[in-house]
């Protein structure tokens, strides 16, 4: 295997949970299982530390690892990290120990199997974000399906069967389209290597089909507005840790897919269909907010708010400007932290009151002040209060929107106001509402729960108050991607106000000079 930095960091991040998962099978006592997995999670976070040495102005892909996998078909084991994937990998690693801690008492049955699934999920998710070979990406993408399915199906709520099958079918339908696109790229581009595919430019007609297949697969995963119906069902039925993983990591795979594949591989089609995607995003923002306003179940409310927040992310991506895309990536990270924290807290609340209805959980401020402090913190972050992390992301996206086309900005602003409306309504009732009946189980947070939530709370402020640190890391990658996109579109002769019939006839020059230079510089 060829590695860039001597120690194969990414491979270690993927292999460690796998080995740990196998080792779990030989453990008998629940306490051992939990402690062991927690230890592995902390080790995983420590293993991530070398990734912080990512040099923003360095080569396009860093920490590259390459090995032969299936030379007969041109598949390679090719891993690498760039600005688009760096924070997603860090977030995935961070979520593992937090999920273990958060389910310490929540999961009481089949403990070994639960942690087995958690570890497999972590491994597959990191693989998705780091894979630089299209087939390898698909392998990880699919490998994450079965453990997630089991997480919902085995440890879920009363309607878990329905929710898990719905989740599986939706995602599988998308994956099939993705596989078709992968094979098509192999036929046309002649390789599975993502950096090599990025160097080339394809005919418009091909781009439209490929974009359609990939965008549908990713839109289901995000989920974008008309394909979102699996999400509330899955969130409501999944156990707390399952919801956290779903919200924090799985949804990001869709938006990551847009950034990694749609923008660089099908730039002309992306630009052509960007207005449609923007319209769907805004529809998602408004729709998610309106539906969230009417929910009585806290978890459902947060689930629908996710639809709205992810709408902001896709909006930012398809603005196709540096501001918009960096806002989108930041928002991906923020949504993971904030919504992950909220779902974790709902799990803690459910453990205490065995209900997720707002009416059963009113007036908690008097009995659980610390809980409500953190819940309020995450809620404020969710409605993008200045000083919290989401504010930065959302403002960047909105600035990008107003720069692109003021009407887009005007259309998106009500979404931000809706978020304030439903979150404040929730907070007001849960904190100060008249309790229907006092429950002796309303005890405040314990030390373990504190430790679970503290890292997320710290990140809320850290990103909220010093966003420049994160943005400067990701911006060069975004600029590189957008510049390559523009270069390819110019090379094939695409202009802004070209009618579709003319675009349809455009053929792509397979190689675009400036683009290959900027991507080739993989090794310094």
């Amino acid at each position, binding site marked *: 295997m060829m590695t860039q930095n001597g120690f194969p960091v990414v491979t270690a991040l993927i292999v460690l949970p796998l080995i740990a998962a196998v080792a779990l099978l030989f453990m008998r006592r629940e306490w051992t299982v939990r402690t062991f997995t927690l230890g592995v999670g902390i080790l995983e976070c420590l293993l991530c530390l070398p990734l912080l040495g990512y040099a923003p102005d360095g080569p396009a892909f860093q920490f590259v690892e390459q090995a032969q*996998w299936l030379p*007969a*078909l041109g598949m390679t084991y090719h891993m690498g990290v760039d600005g688009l994937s760096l924070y997603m990998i860090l977030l995935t690693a961070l979520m593992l120990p937090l999920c273990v801690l958060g389910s310490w008492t929540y999961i009481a049955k089949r403990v070994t199997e639960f942690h087995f699934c958690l570890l497999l999920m972590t491994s597959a998710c990191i693989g998705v974000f780091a894979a630089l070979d299209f087939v390898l990406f698909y392998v990880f993408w699919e490998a994450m399906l*079965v453990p997630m399915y089991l997480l919902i199906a085995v440890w879920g709520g009363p309607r878990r069967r329905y929710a898990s099958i719905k989740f599986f079918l939706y995602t599988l339908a998308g994956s*099939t389209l993705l596989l078709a696109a992968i*094979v098509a790229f*192999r*036929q046309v581009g002649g390789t599975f290597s993502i950096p090599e595919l990025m160097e080339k430019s394809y005919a418009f007609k091909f781009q439209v089909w490929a974009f359609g297949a990939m965008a549908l697969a990713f839109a289901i995963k995000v989920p974008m507005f008309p394909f979102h119906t699996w999400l509330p069902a899955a969130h409501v039925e999944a156990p707390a840790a399952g919801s956290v993983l779903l919200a924090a990591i799985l949804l990001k795979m869709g938006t990551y897919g847009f950034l990694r594949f749609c923008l660089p591989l099908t730039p002309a089609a992306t630009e052509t269909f960007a207005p449609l995607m923007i319209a769907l995003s805004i529809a998602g923002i408004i729709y998610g907010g309106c539906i969230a306003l009417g929910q009585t179940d806290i978890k459902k409310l947060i689930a629908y708010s996710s639809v709205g927040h992810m709408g902001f992310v896709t909006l930012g991506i398809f603005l196709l400007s540096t501001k918009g895309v960096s806002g989108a990536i930041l928002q991906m990270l923020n949504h993971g932290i904030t919504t992950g924290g909220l779902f974790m807290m709902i799990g803690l609340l459910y453990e205490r009151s065995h209900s997720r209805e707002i009416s059963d959980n009113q007036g908690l401020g008097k009995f659980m002040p610390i809980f409500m402090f953190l819940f309020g913190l995450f809620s404020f972050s969710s409605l993008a209060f200045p000083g919290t992390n989401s504010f930065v992301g959302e403002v960047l996206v909105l600035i990008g929107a107003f720069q692109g086309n003021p009407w887009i900005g005007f259309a998106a602003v009500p979404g931000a106001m809706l978020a304030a409306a439903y979150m404040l309504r929730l907070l007001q009732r849960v904190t100060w509402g008249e309790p229907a009946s006092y429950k002796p189980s309303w005890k405040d947070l314990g030390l373990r729960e504190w430790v679970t939530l503290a890292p997320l709370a710290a990140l809320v402020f850290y990103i909220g108050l010093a966003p420049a640190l994160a943005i400067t890391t990701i911006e060069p990658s975004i600029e590189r991607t957008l510049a390559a996109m523009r270069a390819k579109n110019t090379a094939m002769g695409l202009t802004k106000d070209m009618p579709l019939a003319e675009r349809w006839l455009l053929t792509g020059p397979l190689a675009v000079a400036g683009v290959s230079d900027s991507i080739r510089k993989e090794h310094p």
Partner: protein
Amino acid sequence: MTAQLVLYFPHLSLALGGLVILLAACLRRTPATLFPILAGVFAALPGLWSLAGPTGASGIGCYYAGLLSVITLATVALTARYAARRGFAGDALYGLVLWSALGMLLLAASDDWLMLIVGLELASLCLYAVVASRLSDPLGTEAALKYFLPGAMSLAVLVFGAALVYAGSGSLIIADSLAAGGPIVSAGLALALIGIGFKLSLAPVHLWTPDVYQGAPAPIAAFLSTGSKAATAAALLHLCAEASPEARELLWPALAGVAGLTMAAGNIGALCQKSVKRILAYSSIAQMGYIAMAAMAVNDGGGEAALFYLAAFALMDLGAFGAVGLLSGEIGDRDDVTAYQGLGYVHPWRAGALAISLLSLAGLPPTAGFIGKFLVFGAALRAGYVGLAAFGIVTAVIGIFYALRVVAALYMQSGVEAHPAIPAPAGPAGGLALGVMAAGVLALGLFPQSLLGAIAALFGGG
């Protein structure tokens, strides 16, 4: 003489192995545990031979000696305790299994029409008896009869086809006779393919398969679906590779229709089955549809893809049927899907092997089934069968549901149904074989190059 001995070592060891087992039974006071051990030793010899890489042996002979050796060895290991507990272990069972493997080897490596027919018939004749080996079980006898009648029919069609080919070309060598071309040869080839289609259970002549697999004891069903299918598929690949262009023009549309129909019939048929063994039978029908598609693209890399897929299929089907056998109680096989509820928690290892095998049959990564399907569909696309490949992908997606149904039963509902709740003990050999199969499915999925490299080396990269 020595060269001949080396060349025919696998055949000799399988034939002699059967004889030795039968002879050992004549001696007084032979312990019953000796038979599986002897069978295992003689089944392993061809594999060692092919690993040693003998000079002068054909690539296909070498590959199949190895593959059939693995299949036979696994079958013997899975059968050993299973048959002993149910009282149908004996010299005849193991002897016939070895001889049937000999027939499969002859069939797979045949260059000559007569050898092909002899091999096919030797393999089938032994299998008819093996399927019915559990004499107390009426289902087994019925299965044997249902296997025998289509088998006899298919042999008649195949022999008639071979006779027509001989009449049209004057040669019994497969390559020469098919190269001759002409309408009579094409008609003969068509009949021969129909005969082989019967054995491969290609739709619309697949209807015997579910009944036979359901009736046969689970490890025997594994042998039936892997060994016999793999060898017959080799014959199909061989015939397709040698077919003349005019025969292709005539027959390929029909073969495409058959392949598509088989994939659809297998995957859709499996959806509404209640019996796990019938689900597996329909799934093996579907897999043969993919093999038929690869056979159409045999000269565009489909051959290598099919050989890889056959090996992967052998591992996963042995794993699946083997797990069914090892999870079964003493009386019948555990068959109803509902009887598998919650087994994942009671017997994690055996159920885990079943789950891995099923996910591989469904073609989900990171298992051998995914790589195999990828190769097969890639070959079909390269050869230009885009419509068929697209149709195949759709049916493969449908196929994921039946696998998921069984996996869901294994892990979702808690509480084991009262069925025969306690499976008979697996025995060390059975457990080991099952573990090796499941590990092999994952290993081939993660490191497919190990086998693909061997295939490429054996067939000279083309």
